[in-house]
């Protein structure tokens, strides 16, 4: 469903994404892990068509998102890491606007808006300006906006930031149901428990490159540790701080 072929993005002299190759199939949740500044957000933004790659390509259901951006984007729903939306629209107006961008209108959209707002407990704030929403409410509104057109691919950058436990649980359920229905969810996260419990397959990115990918078992083999949890695997692969370093900085 998603194919990344030698995907590269540079900002001046800095290479944020250095030739990533990935293939993500249908009906699965794919997790993208990596330390801060590894290139996760840049990768997701290129998949969503927000950033143009310097070289390489992104195919969504066979559509190149530079050569055929409209066809590729029609299939996609994107949730950014920071919930910036139009403050001066109401929640319902924002969802109607989003539906309109995907060519949807009429009573079906109204039903869908109500369904999504109900799902995320936002119905009481339907006609309130977004500027009065909390961070978590905005996050839920953006997730609703990404789902309004029933996409086949969902690209979600740091989905749990700002969500309360009930909403986080709900989002996991939504993503699972989405994948069970044949959808592809690509999720970038720092929450390793989430990745371990939710994702069917994972890729670890570091310094703009994929350093490991596959199922949890594949990653265990990669890290030469058959029983390790994802946290240990992640630290091994990305060479996290050692105990002695931590003790030196934080200890007495």
């Amino acid at each position, binding site marked *: 469903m998603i194919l990344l072929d030698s995907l590269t993005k540079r900002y001046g002299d800095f290479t944020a994404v250095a030739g990533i190759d990935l293939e993500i199939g249908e009906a699965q949740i794919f997790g993208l892990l990596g330390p801060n500044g590894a290139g996760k957000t840049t990768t997701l933004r290129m998949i*969503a068509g927000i950033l143009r790659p310097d070289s390489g390509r992104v195919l969504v259901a066979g559509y190149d998102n530079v050569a055929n951006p409209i066809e590729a984007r029609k299939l996609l729903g994107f949730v950014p890491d920071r919930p910036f939306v139009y403050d001066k629209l109401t929640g319902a107006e924002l969802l109607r606007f989003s539906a309109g961008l995907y060519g949807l209108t009429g009573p079906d959209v109204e039903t869908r808006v109500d369904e999504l707002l109900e799902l995320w407990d936002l119905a009481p704030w339907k006609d309130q300006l977004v*500027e009065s929403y909390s961070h978590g409410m905005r996050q839920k509104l953006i997730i609703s906006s990404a789902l309004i057109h029933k996409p086949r691919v969902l690209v979600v950058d740091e989905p749990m930031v700002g969500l309360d436990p009930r909403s986080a649980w709900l989002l996991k359920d939504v993503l699972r149901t989405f994948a069970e229905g044949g959808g592809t969810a690509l999720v970038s996260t720092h929450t390793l428990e989430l990745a371990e419990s939710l994702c069917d397959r994972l890729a670890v990115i570091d310094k703009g490159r994929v350093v490991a990918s596959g199922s949890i078992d594949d990653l265990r083999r990669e890290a030469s540790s058959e029983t390790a949890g994802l946290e240990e695997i992640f630290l091994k692969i990305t060479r996290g701080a050692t105990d002695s370093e931590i003790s030196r900085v934080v200890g007495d």
Partner: protein
Amino acid sequence: MSVRREFVLLLTPKVLSARRRGIAGRGRWGRAVMVLGVGAAAWPFIYVTLTRLLRTLRGVEEVGPLLASKLLALGLLVFLGILLLSNLIAALSSFFLSRDLPWIRAAPLDWLSVYLTRLTETLVSSSWMVVLMLVPMLAAYWTVYDGGWTFLALSILAVVPFLIIPAAIGSATTLLLVRLFPARRSKDILGIIAVASVGLVVLLLRVLRPERLVNPESYRNLVDFMAALRGPSSPWLPSQWGADALAGFLQGGFDPFLLVLLWTTALGTVTVGAILHRSLYAACFTRAQEGTENRIQHHAAWKWLERALSGASLQRQQLVLKDVRIFFRDTTQWSQLIILGVLVVVYVYNIRVLPLSSGEMITRYLITLVVFLNLALSGFVLAAIAARFVFPALSLEGQTLWLLGSAPLEARTILGAKYWVGAVPLTAMALLLTGFTNYLLGVPAGLAVLSLASTVALSLAFTAQALTWGVYFPEFESENAAQIPTSIGGLLFMLGAVVTLGCVVGLQIWILREFLMSGLPGREPRNPFMWEVGLALSGTLMCCAVSGILPYRAALRRLDRLDF
């Protein structure tokens, strides 16, 4: 940590940020050139004009010194008003809306150091422009009255408390205002008051018709004006104390009590402000976090607009509706309509009071020339409106651009929607402005059609140009729509628009030169031939089409390749 150390510590990031803003960022050279250019033009202009005026006044017995000191008092009074208003607005940001406040509030800091740093921030951000204006003004008094170095020291001693007083009053008033309203609502209210005040001042200055002062027939009014100047001044205002102290020193009647009055008042207002801050700030800060009542009622106007847009594609409809909704819900955007209204009223008023039929020297030639002048000025007004409302269109998307970037939208749909959101009201304004002023001027039918068609074509071209410059020089970080047109891109757009306008007016005058000459004394007056009007119209349309379509295409290409 002592209050003094905390004060320095809290101000350090602000100073560093300001310094880095000055030396980094795209367009810094353009901004530097603009600031230096405006400064290089404005300072000598103020200084030379005021010096000449003061020299003339110094030569007038009795009334001269009186007028000089009244002029200083009047200047300081205007500055005091500006300072009070800008401090009120700046205090809202620095005390209640600044992004670093939660962090500052959570830190173990003395309340007095927080108050003093925020007061200093408010003072500096509100007063720097007034100080820049005061420098050439006081320098002119210094030169004309040979003030010496003592005057320099005295000026600093008088100006510093003059700046502190409105800052302390403004901050305290803001505190009390937030006690009554949530901070964001207060900001809206203050924003509208500020814009309306500026509009009112411009309107009043124009309606006073200062040009009559050079008209001998209105000397009687000047005498009345002088009588008003001799009237009671404002003994309770710091501007009067400052003016009396400075003018008194220069004219040989210095009263040190006025300086004492200024400084004690400054310290007194700061003390009162600090006491209010200590007792009210915590509660007010909590209040400032509350939102306003944001439930939106569904107006019939939206339904009407939706119906009006029904012919457009769904995506374009949604983009237009979104832009129009946001415009009318954002105070920083719609309040600019007040300034626009004032601009238009002043313009129409200027046309109305033109002495076209009163003077003996006015020829038919000059009257016809006014028609072209009207086209040039209307065009300039339209360019200014486009700079204010169309140029910021893409910048206002700011951090929400991801939504458009990830949607199945073509660049031409986004740009097209923004184009029509700008072009329709601008064209309506063009028709209204030119139609009404043509009516006031009594322009013949052929020329009226030409000027109407020209302003419509110009407004369509200006919309395209404004969008283009906005796409090439977006200001995505800006939080205030009113600040976006003052960026380097806004300036470049205005320059481009003036060039377009010059080409159009120049072309029309060249084509219609024979007709224009026919209005000179001793020639046979005639109306323009149809072929002349037709040729001028074709040239204008061609010029506007080229200057609109080429930039628009460039903007499309740029937007298509833009990383959102």
